[in-house]
């Protein structure tokens, strides 16, 4: 308990330091009259991310330097001590505490979420272990904009595996408090936000969706408050956290900036800041927007997600996302509460500009891969806009009916998850056993951790659990296993020779014809079947099977 208290206190100090950096940034951009805690926090995390990214880039990832920069953030408090802290009603604060407790179970419990394992936690861990940036052809995930993950790497370095998750929890709660406070929607605003599985389940699980939603929301509020310099910074933060934010950022830019001159200035500022990511990729000899571009085939097969992209599919989309969404399949991969659908009634009272903003947000979402976790970027804006109407009694009754109607679909799966994690946290269930049962390839990856030579490097093929490894590794997976397939297609029988690793961990690709029915026979053959068959032949001819566990195979490459 004492450890937990000290841990929480030390992590809280990081948030204070981030706010300190936020204050320093305000001085720099001459917006020092801004005193909002949420803007300072998010702007500060952005500054902190830039510093960490640069340290990783130039190879100065030294603990003493990191501590020095950490303390440097306190300078912000010295220079400008005023800050406006959040104020919530008692009921709302109590409900927020409940949400925080549930989120904490996810953040403190064992990490089993696929995106956390191959992407968010894995990148933070790899950068912290190596003390440098990762990226390039064999580490495509590391070539994404690394603003948020550089901060996660810092937190991982000092607070271990739970650190990034707890920081993410703080940012998620920050978003909820910020939206509820600014919209003055109170308890009902909070309930509307967390009524959907797709948002609630993200709160405690390390990711980039809610921090991005936070950045978009504040960008919009700052634009409305005509604080353009800070808005430009937060737009850069949002885009760097998740490129999917581009639709909403564009809508805000188009609808809320009063003149084309100002629009041009802000565009130049944001593009200039953002250019750091393409520049880095160019220097690493990959496409500027790698890994989103630079492959022989599209990065994402959009047809795979949702329920069809015909005109009929788009027309039925508003109904389908509420009625037919599934958590564990590509059919929207999430769940929305009917409370949200009922809240749509309040759109009638919105002004044209606000309606356009929401419509553009929805349209951009629909054009993308139609994952409901991307839809969460839009939710804070919705709640803010209908906030005043959430105080109407009759409306609250309707909303509650919508909430009750879909509570089992939305909160049901969460309660079983929290219950399982609580068992692990209090020691009722062995964590190793839990991880072994819930992470595909966990046992094989643990074997790799302990059994292969210290200077050996494993490459993960069709295996998502990179965060389990305590050593540097290559590849792992990203959309439709493009990197592995592209590597085989490019190098063919020389593939193992060009791979700078001596072990490969091979999972199941799970790429069936049925799942890719939208591809022609020829495309399926060329893009999927042939590379997978070539890999199996290579494994037979040039590698030695040294271990298998639960269908995950470990090979030693014979070079």
């Amino acid at each position: 308990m004492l450890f937990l208290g000290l841990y929480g206190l030390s992590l809280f100090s990081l948030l204070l330091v981030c706010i300190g950096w936020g204050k320093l940034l305000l001085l720099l951009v001459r917006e020092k009259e801004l005193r909002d805690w949420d803007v300072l926090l998010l702007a500060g995390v952005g500054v902190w991310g830039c510093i960490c990214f640069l340290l990783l880039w130039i190879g100065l990832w030294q603990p003493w330097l990191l501590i020095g920069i950490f303390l440097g953030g306190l300078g912000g408090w010295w220079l400008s001590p005023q800050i406006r802290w959040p104020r919530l009603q008692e009921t709302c604060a109590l409900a927020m505490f409940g949400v925080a407790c549930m989120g904490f179970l996810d953040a403190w419990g064992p990490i089993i979420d696929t995106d956390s394992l191959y992407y968010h936690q894995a990148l933070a861990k790899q950068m912290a272990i190596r003390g440098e940036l990762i990226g390039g052809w064999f580490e495509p995930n590391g070539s994404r904009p690394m603003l948020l993950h550089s901060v996660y790497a810092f937190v991982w370095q000092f607070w271990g595996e739970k650190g990034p998750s707890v920081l993410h929890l703080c940012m998620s709660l920050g978003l909820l408090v910020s939206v509820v406070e600014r919209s003055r929607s109170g308890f009902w605003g909070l309930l509307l936000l967390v009524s959907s599985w797709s948002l609630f389940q993200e709160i405690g699980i390390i990711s980039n969706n809610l921090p991005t939603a936070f950045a978009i929301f504040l960008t919009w509020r700052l634009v409305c408050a005509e604080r353009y310099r800070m808005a430009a910074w937060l737009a850069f933060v949002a885009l760097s956290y998740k490129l999917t934010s581009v639709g909403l950022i564009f809508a805000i830019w188009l609808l809320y900036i009063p003149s084309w001159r100002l629009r041009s200035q802000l565009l130049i500022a944001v593009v200039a800041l953002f250019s750091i990511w393409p520049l880095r990729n160019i220097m690493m000899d990959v496409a500027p927007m790698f890994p989103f571009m630079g492959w022989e085939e599209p990065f994402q097969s959009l047809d795979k997600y949702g329920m069809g992209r015909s005109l009929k599919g788009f027309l039925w989309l508003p109904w389908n996302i509420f009625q037919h969404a599934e958590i564990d399949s590509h059919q929207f991969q999430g769940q929305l509460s009917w409370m949200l659908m009922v809240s749509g009634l309040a759109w009638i009272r919105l002004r044209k500009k606000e309606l356009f903003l929401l419509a553009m947000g929805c349209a951009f979402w629909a054009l993308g891969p139609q994952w409901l976790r991307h839809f969460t970027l839009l939710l804070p804006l919705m709640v803010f806009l209908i906030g005043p109407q959430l105080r109407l009694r009759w409306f609250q009754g309707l909303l509650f009916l919508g909430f009750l109607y879909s509570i089992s679909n939305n909160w049901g799966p969460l309660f079983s998850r929290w219950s399982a994690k609580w068992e692990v946290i209090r020691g009722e269930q062995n964590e190793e056993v839990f991880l072994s049962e819930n992470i595909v390839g966990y046992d094989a990856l643990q074997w790799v951790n302990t059994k292969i030579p210290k200077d050996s490097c494993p490459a993960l093929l069709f295996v998502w659990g990179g965060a389990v490894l305590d050593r540097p590794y290559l590849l792992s997976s990203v959309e439709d296993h493009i990197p592995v397939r592209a590597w085989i297609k490019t190098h063919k029988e020389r593939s193992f020779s060009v791979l700078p690793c001596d072990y490969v961990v091979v999972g199941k690709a799970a790429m069936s014809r049925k799942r890719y029915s939208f591809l022609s026979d020829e495309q399926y053959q060329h893009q999927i079947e042939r590379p997978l068959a070539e890999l199996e032949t290579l494994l037979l001819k040039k590698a030695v099977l040294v271990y298998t566990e639960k269908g995950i195979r470990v090979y030693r490459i014979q070079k």
Partner: protein
Amino acid sequence: MWLLLGMVFANPIPLYPFPYSCIDPRFPTIHKGWIVGCNPQGEISELYHVESMRRQRLQVESEFVGFDPIEGKIMHGRAGVWDLKSQEQQRFPRITEKLSAPAMGKNGVWAYTTETSISIIEGRKKIQIEAYPRGWYPPAWWGNSIVWVEDDGSGGEDLWMLTDRQQAQVLRGGDIAQRHPVGSGDRLAWIEGERVGIWTFGEPEAQFFPASVVDRLALSAERLCWSQRGVDIDIHCADGFSLERPGNQIWPAIWEGFLLFREGEQLMLYRFEEE
């Protein structure tokens, strides 16, 4: 019917009773004429006899099982053993530890490896010796001794032996990795780099012959076979037999005159011509 066709055409025939692949790649395999195969979840669940075409459904489904070829029993670990003759699940002997590879039985005595030990169990009597066996490779009986693959601590593998006096000693070591020991009576075979070693118990030295082997050996009283790397992968045997067909033939297992292997996703059976 299939047997008749097999004899008429002297070609391997596809086997359809087990259309599903197993989680553990060394299954399906053949044991005392019974093909041990998996359910749609990839767990070992059913047996099919190649001659009588009879089926047995196992009471316990698991990822891997061990065999006692002499007594005709299948080891399930914690759930005990399945007797092929009586078709009953017996509670003892049973292995309660987490196995790192299938157990291997001989006359009712079972040898098995865990992450930190090599053990022998007979009924309720157990002997355990500290060791660091490499996971996945089952131990092999060689006469009355047990041979297993030991982690050499630097990423490679050595062969160790536990004598009938319960003394553990290195059987084969060095820079080249030794893997996949298989035993049949007094004969022991294993893969050592780009060659195969074979040693008859009581003889002073092993014999070696060059072979680029894919993944494992299949040994019976009469034959030693393996998948050989070449232009593609074909099955070769130490007696000069080779089964050369288009595509890759992998994971051979032999019982008396039968050779079971996989060709792509298809399970195939071949009957050696009688000498």
